[in-house]
């Protein structure tokens, strides 16, 4: 799901995903302005209900959750998305009562204003009824 032509008139963006994947255990990722360079980094902590863990990531997209067939909600708040003097940081929460709970802090190493947000589940699809919403928070 891609949101493009995002106006620069808000302060922050909030992405909310409610649904599930059709199969497998897939990365739920964000990508901005079509940037497929290795410009995304993150650190996360998670609990599976029986174990805890923490990790880091870097690559061509920002992994903000692990989407499986268990229903989940993902929220991601992208601060100062239209600023042109800073890299973009965003805080994400992935909540799946049947799988795990996870928090991720991420950075897109680019000072450009965000005008396109791509949310994707790698290697799989959303189930019917999945909603992906993008909100703007006013200054």
């Amino acid at each position, binding site marked *: 799901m891609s949101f493009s032509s995002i106006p620069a008139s808000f302060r922050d963006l909030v992405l909310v995903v409610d649904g599930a994947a059709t199969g497998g255990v897939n990365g739920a990722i964000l990508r901005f302005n079509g940037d497929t360079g290795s410009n995304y980094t993150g650190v996360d902590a998670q609990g599976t209900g029986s174990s805890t863990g923490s990790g880091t990531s870097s690559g061509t997209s920002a992994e903000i959750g692990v989407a499986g067939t268990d229903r*989940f909600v993902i929220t991601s708040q992208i601060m100062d998305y239209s600023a042109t003097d800073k890299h973009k940081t965003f805080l994400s929460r992935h909540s799946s009562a049947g799988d795990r709970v996870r928090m991720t802090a991420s950075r897109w190493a680019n000072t450009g204003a965000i005008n396109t947000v791509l949310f994707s589940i790698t290697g799989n699809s959303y189930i019917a009824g999945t909603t992906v*919403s993008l909100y703007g928070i006013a200054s």
Partner: protein
Amino acid sequence: MTMTLIETKTLGTAAASIEFTSIPQDGTDLVVLMSLREAGGSEADGIQMRFNSSSTGYSFRRLFGAGSGSPTSDTGGAILWMNSNTSTSNTFANASVYIPNYAGSTNKSFSNDGVSENNATTAYQAIVAGLWSNTEAISSISFANPSARNLVAGSTISLYKITKGSSGGVVVS
């Protein structure tokens, strides 16, 4: 996006629960913000959230820390550890809950963040994933301690609805 206060409830005297009923069905998502303290118990007590008076169909995954030692993950059902009479005076726990598509016809996922406040080593911070396996639209939400201990006066819960605005020119594909 518009975030609109539906109602704030603040206890003038201690009470066993706080409940919101007749929730308007014209929003997209719900946000609950809480500031709570209980009369008695310990730092490990929690508060339960129930939709439409239903006590079944709930599942959870939690990640929490207690101020010392390693974090823990379990499938417990409290959404917030509350401050109790054993915690620092005049301090209240804080929590938020985000419930997307509350008026829709799918099972209801929700996300919770919470922290108890205490001027001591033991204080809890948790993130919780929840699911209510019920396709009913949410029309009421109640909060109560599962051990039936009262919430103290000054405990406050605010319920907001988030409503989608116009696309603002954003193209979706």
